């Protein structure tokens, strides 16, 4: 059925191929591990585990930062794979990013599981400096330095994509398709992979720079507490960096949809003017929407919060709408071949689209004041991430696994349904819990809340089983992945 889907990369060197597969193999393992962490938090809230709050918050910190880091890594592999078909990228830099990443991970894991650091992945000031005996300053510093190193690695990677893109297309405006958009240029627009990568490198370099400032200032404060920082300014910078980084992961992974779906439907996906416009708008909006994380901070300037609300309404839309409509027109009466890859990619579109609705609800100031610290929030972002982003990444893995005639079994189809049903049930329980005003980030729940937690735990287990099959399949088929280089 899917035997004819070809994986072609005209100029992928052996070294780059190996490095990319290493990126993805690490990602598959870490996804699984972090999902087990996630499920164990739900088990704890269900009163099935009894690990105690100290471990709960360590695991919560590890799950948050682990997931965000690893989706960034996996998504950058997707971007690299498709972008390097169009521009010259540097394999040594691809390797360097991985090395920085792994060193950073060691420092972060050490901080959490040896040093006891448990201030949540957001390391909001002044919490890292207030371990009160649960963790010390060195543990907090190890976490911050680890994050800084990971940032340096990604910075190198995005600078290299910038260099490659500008060398071929001239500058960032041209690579975003502005001559076609604004000046009616008749030249062919850059391919969607280039447009998306350009957007991503712009926002991520800005985000990493902001992160690099605030991380170092937090480090200074750890050891010299008399340098008091403005907590609100720190929060602004952290959420600018955090929001941008996680969104950019989606915007990199979606390249897989643009590149792979057309193979399944035998119809080309060409960037239209609307497509170009929406990517340009999203570039601006992704960077200006982060105040929706600060709607409860009444000391924020009012205009910033209103901007956060308005742009939250619009932000997800442009790229999502052109992508979803683009995908639908590709699929409609195309006789699409259904297999795990195409199913995952279609699921990712649905998940991304569905995640927007509760996100918009929460992006409304008056609602946010009630809902913000409830499980509604993890509810909406797990829809995006678990049902939108991860299916893109797993879909890309299956695309490679099924390359050029390789087949997978019925187990994978079953795993897909486990993942789908488990995922939908799991996020629905988060949303329902939020509706009941159950707070987020609580290790122990009131007895009225426990039934929600138990149902969620069952669904979480289904997701983990599905993901286990996905990861197992990818890892055991690594050596058979067959990327044609003609």
């Amino acid at each position: 059925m899917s035997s004819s889907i070809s994986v072609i990369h005209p100029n992928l060197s052996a070294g780059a191929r190996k490095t990319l597969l290493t990126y993805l193999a690490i990602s598959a393992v870490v996804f699984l591990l972090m999902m087990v962490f996630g499920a164990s938090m739900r088990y704890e809230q269900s009163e099935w585990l009894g690990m105690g709050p100290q471990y709960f918050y360590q695991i919560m910190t590890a799950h948050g930062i682990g997931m965000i880091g690893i989706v960034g890594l996996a998504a950058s592999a997707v971007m690299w794979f498709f972008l390097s078909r169009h521009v010259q990228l540097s394999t040594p830099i691809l390797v360097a990013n991985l090395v920085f990443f792994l060193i950073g991970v060691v420092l972060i894991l050490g901080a959490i599981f040896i040093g006891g650091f448990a201030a949540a992945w957001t390391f909001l000031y002044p919490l890292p400096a207030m371990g009160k005996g649960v963790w010390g300053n060195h543990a907090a510093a190890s976490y911050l330095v680890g994050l800084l190193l990971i940032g340096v690695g990604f910075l190198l990677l995005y600078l290299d994509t910038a260099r490659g893109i500008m060398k071929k297309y001239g500058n960032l405006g041209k690579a975003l398709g502005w001559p076609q958009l604004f000046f009616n240029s008749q030249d062919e627009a850059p391919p969607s992979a280039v447009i998306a990568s350009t957007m991503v490198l712009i926002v991520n370099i800005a985000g990493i720079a902001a992160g690099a400032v605030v991380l170092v200032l937090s480090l200074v404060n750890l050891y010299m507490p008399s340098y008091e920082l403005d907590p609100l300014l720190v929060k602004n910078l952290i959420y600018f960096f955090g929001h941008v980084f996680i969104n950019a992961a989606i915007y990199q992974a979606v390249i897989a949809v643009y590149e792979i779906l057309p193979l399944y439907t035998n119809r080309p996906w060409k960037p239209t003017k609307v497509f170009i416009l929406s990517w340009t708008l999203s570039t601006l909006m992704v960077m200006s929407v982060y105040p929706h994380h600060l709607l409860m901070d009444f000391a924020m300037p009012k205009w910033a919060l209103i901007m956060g609300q308005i742009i939250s309404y619009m932000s997800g839309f442009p790229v999502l709408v052109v992508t979803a409509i683009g995908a639908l027109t590709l699929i409609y009466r195309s006789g699409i071949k259904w297999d795990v890859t195409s199913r995952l990619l279609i699921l990712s579109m649905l998940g991304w689209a569905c995640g927007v609705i509760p996100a918009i609800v929460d992006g409304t100031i008056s609602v946010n004041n009630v809902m913000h610290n409830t499980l509604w929030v993890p509810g909406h972002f797990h829809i995006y991430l678990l049902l939108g982003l991860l299916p893109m990444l797993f879909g890309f893995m299956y695309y490679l696994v099924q390359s050029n005639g390789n087949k997978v079994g019925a187990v994978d189809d079953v795993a897909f349904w486990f993942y789908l049903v488990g995922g939908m049930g799991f996020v629905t329980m988060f949303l329902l819990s939020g509706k009941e005003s159950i707070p987020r980030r609580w290790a122990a729940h009131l007895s009225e809340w426990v039934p929600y937690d138990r149902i969620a735990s069952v669904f979480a287990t289904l997701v983990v089983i599905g993901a286990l099959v996905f990861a197992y399949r990818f890892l055991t088929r690594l050596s058979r992945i067959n990327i044609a280089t003609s």
Partner: protein
Amino acid sequence: MSRSILFFVLFLYLLSYSIIGQWFEVSMVRHVLIQIPCLVLAGYLFGRKSLINNRFLILINDKGLAGILMCIFIGGYWMLPRALDAALAGSNMALVKYISLPFFVGIPLAISWQRIHPIARAVIKIEFLTMLFRLGWLYLVSPNRLCNFYQLNEQIILGKCFLIIATSLSLYWILQLFAEDYREQETLKKNNLYDQASS
């Protein structure tokens, strides 16, 4: 060549031991934002004009690595408030300042900048910007004076100046990435450089 040496020496003199030099050092802002950059600039311009094609320097400064490292470490040292204090307290350190900034920061920068890897150039630019933001922020929140020779309020003005400079420079560099065409430039630069180095 001889004329540029003359200008260089004169410029250094004006910036250092002369009355003008003292006027710079009376204020922290002038010291950090005018005198030090000018000392570096003097070396940089001299290096660009007279030393950039020097065979020997090209040979020992392979890929610009040695030069740029020297520039980063010595420049980094002069970023420390303590270094400013030392230069003001004793004439030995003052002399070290007047010599090291042009000769070991400005000149190495001039002869290395075009030779280092483009990614390294970009990293240095970004690190320079983030360092300005960090220092600016630190100077604003520092509870005490970082330099014994200057008052707290001057330190705060300097911090604000850092933030303004960093913001403007970021905007300028970002605009460049949208306005210029890097297609020809990259290849042009490369050709020039490699031709010179290998001929």
